[in-house]
């Protein structure tokens, strides 16, 4: 294969699926997993571009994104656990206090 474009296409498809997941699921955990899927698809695109141009920088970005993702998951899950404790629910529709 002489281009990295198929990887980018796959990345876009996975990203769109992640978006769909965020929007059609109402369980906070499911939404969170969909976000992870989106992050992962972005990583894939970065690695594909790194391969395309023969540079390491894309891979370094992915390295940092993974680290940030780990931090984000730790805090995000902590939030979900706290909210669950308070409301006995992980349904985001129950969290509508920001109603305008």
């Amino acid at each position, binding site marked *: *294969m*002489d*281009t*990295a*474009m*198929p*990887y980018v*296409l*796959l990345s*876009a*498809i*996975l*990203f*769109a*699926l*992640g*978006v*769909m*997941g965020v*929007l*059609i*699921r*109402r*369980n906070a*955990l499911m939404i*969170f*997993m*969909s976000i*992870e*899927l989106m992050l*992962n698809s972005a*990583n*894939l695109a970065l*690695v594909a571009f*790194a*391969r*395309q141009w*023969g*540079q*390491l920088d894309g*891979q*370094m970005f*992915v*390295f*940092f994104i*993974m*680290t*940030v*993702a780990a*931090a984000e*998951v*730790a805090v995000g*899950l*902590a939030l*979900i*656990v*706290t909210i*669950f404790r308070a409301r006995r629910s*992980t349904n985001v*529709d129950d969290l509508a206090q920001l109603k305008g």
Partner: protein
Amino acid sequence: MSPDLLLFLIIALVAVAAALGMLFSRSALYAALFLIMNFGAVAVLYLLLNAPFLAVVQVSVYAGAIMVLFLFVIMLLGAERLGRDPEPATMRWQRPLAIVLAVVLIVQAVYVFAARAGAAPAVAEAVDAGPLNIGKTLINSYLLPFEVIAIVLLAAMIGAVVLTRDK
């Protein structure tokens, strides 16, 4: 069809299937397992893209550590028994609209790909992406981000502890 492309197609298929499985599975537990499968497939793609270090990190950190954390929380909260999302009382239009828009997004991506595939530049010479080279780059060009990300991790750790602490 080159073996490379064939291998890519098979793995890409696995990744998309796993993503779809995650999207539509009723149980959060199954969803997490599907996501692990997707991450594994992407890790293989990393290998194909000359990123062996990231492939290993993907498996150990993402598919391993992070998803274990997910599974742990799912079981802790009993979310595996939640089953299907309840039918929403309001905004019934939201779900179909989201699906349509996501599909539009995919179609647009495919269109761009199809329109520009021929014009795509050829890949460059592969560089050495072994752990040694990665490490050198990390503490030479990326020293400051490296230090900063360490602080971010520390902050996240403290944050997680503070958030879940019982008062």
